[in-house]
């Protein structure tokens, strides 16, 4: 009885072009996680509030649970897996580790993508700008204190104290 249609889409994900038949109702986040096995992008809610699924869509920060996969047809997607190759961490990733900006690590991929979008647009953000940039990302472990510090440090400004 399923009347769900599907569509073939072409998406560039982390620099690789992918052709895929997806159901029209498939969420982008499930396409990334279940179809492409890019499991770094996470799901923490059903309502677009938590930001664990944040990715870059044509360079713009989006919540991938709020888009259908078919809306990504022709688009360029960057996920957390694009940030660094196997060994070397980026300064942002290294700063998250140095400043203990992650505990369970579940929100971390989304946080990193939000911070990446921020730092590309503004390489000297103030603390308030950092907090605004990650206000769409929920973390239940850290109270955000060390996440803010890490983003400050990665922006090249260093951290006071």
């Amino acid at each position, binding site marked *: *009885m*399923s009347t769900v249609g599907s569509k073939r889409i072409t998406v560039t994900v982390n620099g690789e072009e992918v052709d895929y038949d997806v159901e029209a*109702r498939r969420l982008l986040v*499930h396409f990334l*996680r*279940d179809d492409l*096995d*890019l*499991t*770094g*992008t*996470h*799901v*923490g*809610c*059903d*309502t677009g*509030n*938590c930001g*664990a699924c944040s990715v870059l869509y044509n360079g713009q920060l989006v919540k991938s649970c709020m888009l259908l996969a078919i809306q990504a047809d022709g688009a360029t997607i960057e*996920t*957390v*897996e694009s*940030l*660094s190759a196997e060994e070397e*961490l980026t300064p942002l*990733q290294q700063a*998250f*580790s*140095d400043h*203990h900006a*992650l*505990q*369970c*690590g*579940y*929100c*971390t*991929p989304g946080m*990193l993508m939000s911070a990446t979008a921020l730092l590309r647009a503004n390489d000297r953000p103030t*603390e*308030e700008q950092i*907090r605004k940039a*990650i*206000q*769409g*990302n*929920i*973390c*239940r*472990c*850290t*109270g*955000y*204190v*060390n*996440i*803010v510090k890490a983003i400050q440090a990665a922006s090249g400004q260093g951290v*006071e*104290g």
Partner: protein
Amino acid sequence: MTEVQEPLVVEETETKPGFVGTNVPRKEDKRLVQGQGVFFDDVKRHGMGYVHFVRSPYAHAKVVHVDVSKALELGGVFGTLTGDEVAILTDPFFELSTPPGAHIKDYALAVGRVRHVGDPVAAVVASSRELARDAAELVEVEYEPLPPLTDAEQALEDETLLHDDAGSNVVWSGVFDWGDWDGAKAEADKIVKIDRLHFDRFSSTPLECSGALVEYNRGTGQWTMYCNHQMPGIGAIWMAPALRTGLDKLRFVTQDIGGAFGNKICLHPQFVALCLLARKLNRPVQWTEWRTDQHTANAHGNERIFRDVEVAVKADGTLLGFSCRAIDDCGAFPRYEPLGCIIWAQVTPGCYRWRNIRVDFTQVCTNKSPVSPNRGYSRMQHLWLTERIIDIVANELGLDPVDVRKRNYVRAEDMPYETPNGCVYDSGDYARCLDIALELIGHEGLEAKRRDAESRGKLLGFGIGSTLDSGTNNFGQSTLLNPELQFSGNNEVATVKLDIFGEIVVTLGTVPQGQGHETTAAQVVADILGCSPDDVHVRAGHDSYWNSHAGFSGTYASQFAVTGLGAVKGATERLAEEIKRVAAGVFGAEPADIELAEGQARLAANPEAAIPFMGIGAIVNANNAILPEDVRDVTLNCRYVYVPPFQLPDKERKFGNLTLTYATQVHAALVEVDPETGVYDIVDYAAVDDCGKRIHPQIVEGQVHGATAQALGAATHEIFAYDEEGNLLTPNFYDYHVPHALDMPPMRNGYIESASPFTPLGAKGMGEGGGAAIHAICAALQDALRPRGNPLVWRSCNPYHQVWQYLQDGKRGVEVVDA
């Protein structure tokens, strides 16, 4: 707008050389920042089916009929499970309570009746998440609604029963009476009476929802669960009898877990349904809880009402004791309960020296989500009571809350301190912590800040919260609820081995969810073996088949630094001794002549004579004929079970040592309230923590930040509110507002270290201590509102509209009488 401050005060009692006590890089971080962690939902199997639960839209109803036939007709649907099947294939989960709670029947799916919105009545398995959801819509359930019970005090009347088998909505009740309450009243100058205090429902809502991928092996009858259960030892004890199988047939596997906070302890009903489906359908099945389902039907923190609170106090503010009735609302099923009816007694007197305490405790079922342990489990509710009492007494008698605390705190020189019910506070200096908190928040300038706020039309309020995080349970406390239970003590396991190529491999029994166990275990091992934490490979997560766990294994109740690291230390010391024996055998020396350093075993007197660990591993595993006969028993694979030094409690007196360690938290808050609207800001915040020896200060600080953030959420916004029909009004992150980055106040942190005399490393469990924030905000609001009618702050969660309500209601519910 906000300012982040480094810790201003760190006082160390003793610094051990080595890696313990330093901020070594976390081993977990690299994979997690690269998106290469493995959470249960990342695990896939060929042909696996996705599970969706069909859930009750009613809070209370008879299930007349369940028809899955239309769902089964849908292409891509693999099968279903109903309550009728569950009733035939499984036994009810065992209950911990004495009657009436003992007679409650709790199954994996609703059998005959639903008892809360979200109660699962059937499960559907299909080839995709979306299809499973479609199919669930096709399951037809006929309900016959029953009156919903959403009020714990109404539930006590037993006019409507949730569980007919129990014959009462009461799960458990009992009176705890320590010291001489009547004598305290006679000795008192004043009795402060508080009509009602209400600790609201909330939960830590881990960002990763619950779930599992379950495989069934038909040949061996074994189930493997790739999951995020945080207490597999107890989970298996619940599940195996229900499934009519043995413990070893249930294999729990975890790697990375996206937070748990206690909310992933009571997953046995869902997991039993998954086990039945995997067996019935002969295929792997996968269930990922939806956020809405976690909020409606997983596990909330306990809601608790305190009635008829009476406090006996001398005119100078010396507290003699208190009595009250406590009514705990555990929702539709007890599950881990009634353990919360005794867990609070770990901190019976809070931080204070009053000796006469009487609590009449009753736990009831209502038509709300079941509860489970939630960060600060049961102690948080009770400590909120004791702290509210302190500030209400100070307010009513015109005393300074700082002075009342210092007058009544257990003193550093009293440690170890035996409480009226036989618990032993191991170490601490509460007054010193308070002084540091006051300094951090600028308490000396309080009156100037008050005037400044007034000039802007705001009311400034100052509040303190001082709490204890009791860690490492003595499970013997369960026998104070039910003398028939055969639980006592505690245990945790670690295995440390030296492999053939010199790898040091550590296996834990614990189930980490972000606490950095891989890192801190490596620190302990490295210090003992004389190597770097980088040389120590700590397996990620938990696997029952590693045979490195015991009955109480898991990560809960603030105990890893004691039980987990105690086991790691014990196992590593055994391995060190074996390495020394091998080296001594090769050199023809005595083990005492051997030292371990720089990844080698060598003669202390002649460091040139050295065997690298790789050589030791190779000799024992692959070249052992060269060894003398008397060292051939060496395995280089050392398992150690850490057992804390507990005694059985006295069931008659409800007396005994219920936990091993007590970490201290003293928090202080400044709020500014708009008296016209009730809107308020937390303008400054300080948190001082003392968890004994800190293995990894950065991890401790992270726990303090996070626990504080959760408690600030619970103090200001987070509430699982129900309407009269039993509908949850906050079933997602839209309506249930957890703190976001812009919600957090500036955070100032301070630390002291009062080493525990009772633990292997002087460390204490910590991480659940954020409850202090709830008290600090309540006290600060009370202080702010004093000039506007001096209302009683009687709820734990105080969103702006509640503050506005206090302003409308004025003072009620509290009185002082001469004794």
